[in-house]
């Protein structure tokens, strides 16, 4: 079994998550080779074969070109699987490679179970086991699902260059919005999710945050709808927090939200759905209506 792992650099920096690919390969019991489009100054500590293409000439986001480079590496390595992180880079490039080779893709894998791959579905409430029906498979793995590997050493670099130009022109990066609230230092965060219902109900959650001496956090839909400012957003596209207490009010527990708060010491979830996936990581799941329970809790604390 051989795995071709696809590393990732952003603005010239190797992403830490690249090491999770080694963790996955180890669980699979696979030999590895890696492909990286990036700069030579930031190579992974790994002693295997590294196909390296220069990001200065190929661009960090140029899917047409990266696909070509990848197909070249596949030709040379003949791997059984091609593994990406399920990131904005991975989920964009993986299906292009799978389609070009006409092979199965299994997305956002969370585990390996008896010859199949486990993936989440129905907004993380349920799981599927998927079996590829093609000899080669493209796989993207969920961030945080596999422990980072520590292969160590220095790679044997084989350089790749792409022939053509891509059809996409990458204009540049835009930095994230400035954060007015630094949630990373908060000891207590009380977050509002879509289950809060409407903007007018946000003060209910904010009052609990104040009563507990903490900050207001929010899930993404709440921010997208303009109920709460972006600087309060918790999750992969918001802030990653680790308070002593995190209270999730009307938040379902999608992986992108969990990624931002699962390191909290103690997690309380208030949700009217007993099966909401937030229950999987919550220390306490209170099955209740946020609008009834939260004001009652706040009142009792204030007393």
């Amino acid at each position, binding site marked *: 079994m051989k795995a071709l792992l696809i590393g990732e650099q*952003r603005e010239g920096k190797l992403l830490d998550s690249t090491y999770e690919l080694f963790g996955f390969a180890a669980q699979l019991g696979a030999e590895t080779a890696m492909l990286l489009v990036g700069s030579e100054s930031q190579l992974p500590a790994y002693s295997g074969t590294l196909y390296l293409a220069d990001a200065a000439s190929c661009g960090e986001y140029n899917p047409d070109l990266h696909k070509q480079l990848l197909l070249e590496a596949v030709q040379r390595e003949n791997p059984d699987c091609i593994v990406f992180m*399920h990131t*904005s880079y991975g*989920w*964009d490039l*993986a*299906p*292009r490679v*799978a*389609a070009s080779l*006409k092979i199965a*893709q*299994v*997305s956002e894998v969370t585990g390996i179970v008896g010859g*199949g791959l486990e*993936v*989440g579905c*129905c*907004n*993380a*409430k*349920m799981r*599927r*086991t*998927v*079996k*590829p*029906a*093609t000899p080669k498979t493209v796989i993207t793995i969920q961030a945080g699902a596999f422990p980072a590997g520590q292969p160590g050493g220095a790679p044997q670099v084989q350089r790749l260059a792409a022939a053509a130009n891509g*059809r*996409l*022109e*990458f*204009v540049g*990066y*835009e930095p994230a919005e400035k954060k007015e609230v630094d949630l990373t230092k908060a000891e207590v965060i009380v977050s509002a999710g879509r289950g809060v219902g409407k903007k007018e109900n946000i003060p209910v959650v904010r009052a609990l945050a104040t009563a507990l001496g903490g900050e207001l956090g929010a899930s*993404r839909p709440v921010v997208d*709808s303009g109920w709460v400012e*972006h600087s309060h957003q918790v999750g*992969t*596209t*918001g802030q990653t927090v680790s308070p*002593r*207490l995190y209270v999730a009010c009307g938040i379902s527990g999608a992986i992108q939200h969990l990624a931002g708060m699962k390191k909290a010491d*103690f997690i*309380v979830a208030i949700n009217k759905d*007993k*099966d909401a*996936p937030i*229950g*999987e*990581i*919550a220390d*306490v*799941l*209170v*099955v209740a209506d946020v609008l*009834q*329970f939260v004001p009652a*809790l706040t009142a009792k604390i204030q007393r």
Partner: protein
Amino acid sequence: MKILVCIKQVPDLESRFKPNAEGVWYSETDLAWRMNEYDEYAVEQAVQLREKLGETTELTVLSIGPERVVEAIKKALAMGCDRAVHVRDSAAAAKDPWQIASIIAAYAKREGFDLIFAGMQSQDRGSAQVGVAVAEQLGYACTTTIVGFEYDNGAITAKRELEGGMKGVVRMKAPALITCQLGLNVPRYPTLPNIMKAKKKEISVIPVAELLTEGALANTTSFHSPAKKGGGVVLEGEVDLLVSQLLGILHEKTAVFR
């Protein structure tokens, strides 16, 4: 100019899911249905563009599935799509992303769309493959997970969302396919007059057999609940009782009240 927007009908995600008879997907009994959230952003963006470009542009909405998906199609028509295609397939849920993509691509090839909008993923299956695979099969330029979109005379500028709130700006030329992310826009609610108008719009039905030539590349062998990680306490009952129970636990297990 011809624009296509691809939508999927998904169950209300607050439903309780039970495996179907084969044990490989959910049973459809007792589920309520709606348009996939990511597709709502796609429809809204397509409609905004259609409004900007005017009458010379035609916007088609496509959905694959059994009879029930007509509800989602009607919503898209009421939001402002001009016409619809219902690829009728009672077994759509059993198809893999590659097959779904090949069905859409087979239809799109006949029509020659300049632009195709899709959601970045479905809320139920979540594979995030179909849009990109359609673009690959058609040989279209493609970018994913967009939160910003501008179109000017065949030139597209799209803003991709990256991790940590960072964005990447990309330019490309039609024909192209883009997949839409949460936060791209605020989807409109269909108004009553538009719902009435939508009733007169054409929904052409194509049996899936006419478009399907590909077999599945991957198979689902099981659909199940996640293994309970344990440890967590579940509190149910009267609100007042819940409040004191929770406060008891917080006093005991955390330092917030010290």
